[in-house]
């Protein structure tokens, strides 16, 4: 039986932002290799233009709700919300890379092109309503990231990070694909809505071992991507080895896209099995935040500490997935993702600014006496640390509040208690940063380089958004709430 595929204008409209970004990326690739002496700084600006045009195209699609390409691809407010976050993060990362790549001696256009293709994969993931498109989007996101991690190919730790990321990424993709094959085997379809329909009409056969296998494989596959304990081992090594702007990009954009796909698969296709997977995810969430926070306490490298802190934050976000059934569960995840994205990009940008001739700016000791060396940077850093801890008036506070409230509503009080204890633990190491900055004498008295305009702009956007989300959380939460209306229906 062959269904004739139908394509119409609406399909192309739904894919318009992706098409624009893809065309831009291809044109920039051609421009890059046409001449051996192209202006690489120009390519950075061209990619910014590409992201900006894509962002506008994404905004023009607001209000559309339909599936395209025979149910493989959907355009709804949830997808648009995630895409906007991803595009903003990408623009900030590219701005933060300004001069960094050149200074390290790796001037090349591929860097920006790879970021663009990775963003393309993330955008597909955000819109995917078929396990095929989820998987293809995931790989399109991940493969450029392997290269970007190993971009500093003369630095051993960069290559090593790429090696570990690649091995773990390939392994987890295979595990996820095996899980998808069993979903197909049980339900006879890979479309998320049809899977949900299958479980709604046929009922859930709790004695079917294949279902448990699917749930286990999915948790393992997605767990690797979002670096949830016990699938987190690669994360600190990769984040430490990768070029700093790429670490910032991966710890926010890749996480946001992975959570988007995770959410859509669980909320759309498997709500009937909620009772089976929610307890597992709850335990995973508790483990993830506890181990992430405790190990972060012992780090001497700031970059590595942030890696563990990002693992802990993945644990907090998992709470929202557990509380999927309460009305604001998913919205709290989206809200936390946006608050976390800006607060987490910031410290990495400051690491970039702290580079001097003799130090990488990545160690905690490099922060000593920053309050005297660069008062403005130290103040901004403090705001980010406040937000990551979850203190008002920054975005982290309402983010945690909504998440914990959703957990209480869905009767996971113990999880909320664990999360609160974890917040207290995390305060130790976030405040340690503040202590180093203000209460220690500077060890390194080198003059900091004057930051370039794009990097400073990126930093100010991050700090501005962190404060803005903290001061008026309702606006953002309403946006997040509206965006999920159609996700679970």
């Amino acid at each position, binding site marked *: 039986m062959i269904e*004739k595929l139908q*394509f119409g204008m609406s399909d192309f409209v739904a894919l318009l932002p992706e098409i624009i970004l893809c065309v831009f990326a*291809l044109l920039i*690739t*051609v421009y890059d*290799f*046409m001449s051996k002496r192209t202006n690489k700084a120009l390519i950075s600006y061209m990619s910014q233009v590409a992201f900006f045009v894509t962002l506008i195209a994404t905004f023009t699609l607001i209000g559309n709700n339909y599936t395209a390409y025979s149910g493989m691809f959907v355009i709804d407010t949830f997808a648009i919300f995630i895409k906007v976050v991803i595009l903003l993060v990408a623009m900030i990362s590219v701005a933060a890379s300004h001069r960094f790549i050149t200074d390290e001696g790796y001037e090349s256009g591929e860097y920006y092109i790879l970021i663009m293709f990775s963003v393309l994969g993330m955008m597909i993931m955000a819109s995917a309503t078929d396990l095929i498109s989820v998987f293809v989007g995931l790989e399109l996101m991940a493969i450029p990231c392997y290269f970007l991690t190993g971009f500093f190919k003369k630095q051993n730790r960069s290559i090593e990070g790429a090696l570990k990321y690649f091995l773990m990424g390939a392994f987890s993709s295979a595990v996820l694909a095996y899980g998808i094959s069993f979903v197909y085997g049980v339900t006879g379809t890979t479309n998320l809505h049809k899977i949900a329909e299958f479980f709604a009409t046929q009922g859930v056969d709790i004695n079917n071992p294949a279902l448990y296998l699917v749930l286990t494989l999915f948790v393992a596959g997605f767990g690797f991507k979002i670096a949830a304990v016990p699938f987190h081992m690669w994360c600190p090594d990769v984040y430490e080895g990768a070029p700093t702007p790429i670490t910032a990009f991966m710890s926010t954009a890749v996480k946001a896209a992975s959570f988007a796909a995770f959410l859509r698969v669980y909320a759309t296709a498997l709500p009937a099995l909620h009772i089976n997977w929610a307890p597992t995810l709850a335990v995973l969430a508790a483990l993830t935040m506890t181990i992430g926070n405790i190990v972060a306490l012992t780090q001497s490298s700031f970059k590595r500490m942030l890696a563990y802190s990002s693992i802990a934050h993945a644990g907090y976000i998992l709470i929202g997935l557990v509380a999927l059934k309460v009305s604001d569960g998913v919205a709290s995840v989206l809200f936390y993702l946006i608050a976390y994205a800006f607060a987490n990009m910031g410290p990495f940008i400051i690491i970039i600014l702290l580079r001097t001739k003799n130090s990488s700016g990545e160690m905690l000791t490099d922060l000593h006496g920053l309050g005297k060396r660069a008062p403005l940077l130290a103040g901004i850093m403090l705001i980010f640390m406040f937000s990551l801890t979850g203190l008002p008036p920054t975005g982290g506070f309402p983010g945690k509040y909504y998440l914990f409230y959703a957990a209480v509503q869905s009767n996971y009080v113990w999880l909320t208690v664990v999360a609160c204890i974890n917040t207290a633990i995390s305060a130790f190491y976030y405040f340690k940063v503040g202590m180093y900055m203000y209460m220690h004498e500077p060890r390194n008295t080198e003059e900091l380089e004057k930051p370039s305009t794009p990097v400073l702009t990126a930093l100010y956007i991050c700090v501005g958004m962190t404060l803005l989300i903290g001061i008026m959380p309702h606006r953002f939460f309403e946006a997040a709430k509206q965006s999920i209306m159609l996700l679970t229906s």
Partner: protein
Amino acid sequence: MVLEYLPVLILMVFALGFAVVTIVMSDMLRPNKPEKVKSSTYECGAPLFTDARGMVSIRFFIISMLFLLFDIEAAFLYPWAINYNVLGLFGFVEIVIFIIILLVGYFYAWRKDALEWE
């Protein structure tokens, strides 16, 4: 059910038997005068230089990498070619776009001297 596979079994027996019989017969009938060159691994006139398990130049990896990519992407052409009549002009345009994207990659590899041996 099993009986359906009987012809396969018979074919296998014949194939195996033919090979075994020819080798054994020729071994018994032919004169046996071994010498050094004759009993070398590849008795074809060219002398051996090294062991076959030696290191391979890393350039082969680059070529194999590129081959792998372009070879596999061609797999997408088969479903299109089979359904050419159904898909019509639309399918043709789509496949041309697909080929153009591949070509960008190909020219990229070319310009970056990935296809040069030295």
